[in-house]
């Protein structure tokens, strides 16, 4: 399990179509700006959010993002949790490999997002759904 610490505030964003993926990028951008992440960190977090949001839409058939500001001791961070009720991921280890794709994409979404964030966790149950949680600490 990844360590979250205390949750300070949250926001939920639905992901049902590709405009919602744009909305996800814009909301995450607003949050990381407000939390005063550096420009490079902002870009990494928003890019990871875009990849994971697209996964939720394309592979999970839609779902939502829960944004949270978290704190662990003196460290604060942003937590993104993408949930869907889709088919689930059969082989999580394989799905994390660069270049592996079940769809039309590049297969960089999961592995790439993992590199862009500090913490990364997937919970997936076949025919129940998938939740991907990532955190970037300041």
């Amino acid at each position, binding site marked *: 399990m990844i360590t979250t610490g205390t949750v300070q505030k949250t926001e939920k964003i639905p992901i049902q179509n590709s405009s919602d993926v744009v909305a996800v990028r814009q909301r995450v951008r607003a949050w990381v700006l407000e939390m005063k992440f550096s*420009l490079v960190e902002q*870009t990494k977090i928003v890019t990871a959010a875009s990849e994971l949001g697209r996964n939720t839409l394309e592979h999970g058939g839609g779902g939502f993002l829960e944004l949270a500001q978290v704190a662990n001791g003196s460290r604060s961070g942003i937590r993104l949790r993408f949930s869907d009720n889709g088919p689930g991921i059969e082989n999580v280890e394989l799905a994390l490999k660069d270049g592996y794709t079940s769809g039309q994409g*590049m297969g960089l979404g999961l592995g*790439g997002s993992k590199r862009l964030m500090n913490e990364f966790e997937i919970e997936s149950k076949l025919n129940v759904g998938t939740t991907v949680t990532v955190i970037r600490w300041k």
Partner: protein
Amino acid sequence: MERIPILRMGNFLLVTIQVDMHDQLALTLQDDLTNRIAEVGAKGVLIDISSLEIVDSFIGRTLANIASMARVLDAETVVVGMQPAVAITLVELGMPLPGIRTALNVESGMDHLREILTSHEENYDYDGDSTED
């Protein structure tokens, strides 16, 4: 339908992406550009992404597709103005955009395209109606 405008300047097509593109808009741009290249016999395509705050794997792949399709249609593509934070993120994401020519700004991108065309003409004795110089 929402579209990104494509400008024509002689043998070149110019595109400035100034909106946060959703995936369908990126695909529409890919189709529109490919059609315009064939329609006007363009020899060079310049895509300015200086306003883009992120390039994720989908947009990266779309840029790579445009460059490949353009090449098949005898046109060169140069992507200009990528922000440093975007470049850092793309490489970390695992997508260094191989096969795409880049330049720091529109001016050096245009120089780049002209150079490519000039050497192209010298090498192949191309006698098209180039508007440059």
